[in-house]
């Protein structure tokens, strides 16, 4: 298609260049600033080599936040996947009022995470919130949700699960609804039980969607910081800090710009590497090789 060579760039370039320009400056800036000693008392783009990186290697708070993030993201996404898939299956076909349930189950992902985190903060309030009230009704002791590290993590995960399970639910339900019906008829004809039909038909057919949904959620979860800021402010101590939040404290609140830049890049690279590996592993685990 001879006349088309000029046109194809006309279609692609506006979007590509826009994104490129928006992204490239911050990236170059961050690389440069990470090699400088820029901080609140010395806001200059000098050159100090890899000193920031060297400091970072000994910053256990940073590494702890990375580990925490990986566990948090992995754990919540797994829970989201299981619950989301389960709920999608329940309201997939014959269910009374399924359209009502579908709407309801979608709502949380539509709402602003930081705003809802503020509401959750009131829910987890030790004396005035309903979380402990509910425990009390069940005859359990009150829990200092946001002031002790264990419960604070549980609270954070609860909020994440509440907020983002609907996203899994949405993708998985859309996937289920797009499945052809013949494989299920074939399974019925072959005499497969409900359980066997799920494992041998539904699950394999849903594998591509599952992988996509999990990866998308992992990408989004790797950026976790807003809800932390509102819900626990990383506390108590630094026990619920994620890299995103720690970077905020270092780079923005305390204006350790150079150091923050070094951590930013490290964080970014680590996340890209981890997610690429996870994506490859998931793809293999779901035997997607050779599938379209």
């Amino acid at each position, binding site marked *: 298609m001879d006349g088309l060579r000029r046109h194809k760039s006309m279609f692609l370039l506006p979007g590509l260049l826009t994104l490129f320009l928006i992204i490239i400056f911050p990236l170059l800036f961050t690389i440069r600033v990470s090699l400088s000693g820029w901080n609140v008392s010395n806001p200059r783009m000098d050159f100090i080599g890899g000193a920031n990186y060297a400091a970072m290697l000994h910053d256990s708070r940073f590494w702890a936040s990375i580990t925490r993030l990986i566990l948090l993201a992995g754990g919540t996404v797994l829970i989201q996947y299981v619950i989301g898939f389960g709920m999608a299956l329940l309201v997939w076909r014959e269910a009374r009022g399924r359209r009502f349930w*579908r709407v309801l189950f979608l709502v949380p992902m539509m709402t602003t995470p930081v705003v809802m985190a503020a509401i959750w903060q*009131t829910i987890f309030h030790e004396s005035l919130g309903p979380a402990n009230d509910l425990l009390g009704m069940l005859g359990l002791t009150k829990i200092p949700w946001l002031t002790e590290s264990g419960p604070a993590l549980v609270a954070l995960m609860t909020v994440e699960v509440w907020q983002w399970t609907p996203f899994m639910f949405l993708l998985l339900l859309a996937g289920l609804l797009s499945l052809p019906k013949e494989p299920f008829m074939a399974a019925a004809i072959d005499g497969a039980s409900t359980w066997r039909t799920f494992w041998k038909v539904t699950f394999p057919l849903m594998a591509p969607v599952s992988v996509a949904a999990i990866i998308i959620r992992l990408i989004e979860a790797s950026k976790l910081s807003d809800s932390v800021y509102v819900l626990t402010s990383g506390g108590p101590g630094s026990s619920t800090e994620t890299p*995103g939040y720690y970077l905020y404290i270092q780079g923005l609140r305390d204006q350790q710009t150079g150091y923050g830049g070094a951590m930013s890049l490290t*964080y970014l690279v680590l996340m890209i590497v981890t997610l690429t590996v996870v994506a490859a592993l998931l793809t293999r685990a779901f035997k997607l090789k050779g599938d379209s």
Partner: protein
Amino acid sequence: MRSRLYPVFKYTVIALWACFVAGPFFWAMTTSFKNANAVQGGPTYIPWVQYKPTLTGWRNIFGGAGGIDVIDPFINSAIVTIAASAISLALGSLAAYALSRYRFKLGFIKNSDIVFFFVSQRIMPPVVLVIPFFYLLQWGGLLDSIPGLVIVTVALLLPIAVWVMVDFFNGIPREIDEMAMLDGCPPFQTFVRAILPNSLPGLTVAAMFCAVFGWNDFFFAFRLTFTEVQTLPQAVVALNSSIPPWWTLSAAALFGVAPLILLALWVERLLSKGNLSGAVR
């Protein structure tokens, strides 16, 4: 064989999850009608029975004494969301169309790599971008302004638009493009007259995702706009940081998420019509 207990189990599970999902909204709703006394008295849920409902919280968010005005932030949020979504959809669908229809080759870079470049931008943590953005906008005089916020929001939304639209365009037979060209349309007309009108489902899905992520963005607004421009999430979170007037916070939160709850109704319709299946493939 399915036991007769299965339906009981099924609806119990659905009901439990529904309670968990709806709980925070119920709590916010009930709290928004309380006053200081009702809140200090410990968790109560049923108005008139357990506490006397007042409209204090709701009055506060519309400029009442000791409260805030949510109208301006609401308008700001709406403008930023709509403008950024529109730009992202326009640039995104053009790029997606090119990536779906034409073959690009630049050294080792192929179409799939370009798609990956777009989509991979979602991995950028806002905190990495925000400092450079700050200086960039400051240099351009766009700090604390709506255009500035729109530009950075486009960076958030463009990958989403490209991701949804590439898949969607791939599902439209190429023969439609070919036919339009044979019928006398140069490429751009082909796109506008033959492909876009058939892409409404894809565009709505993309618009929905853009709207959600655009509306819900907090971090950029938080660090890049201050006094002149405040978005709704910013306004609500600002309430949270002071001594919590829970009633006002709850009312503001509900007000802030209400448009998106309406969006859920619409998403469900897309879902039931099967329009979303393209997006997950």
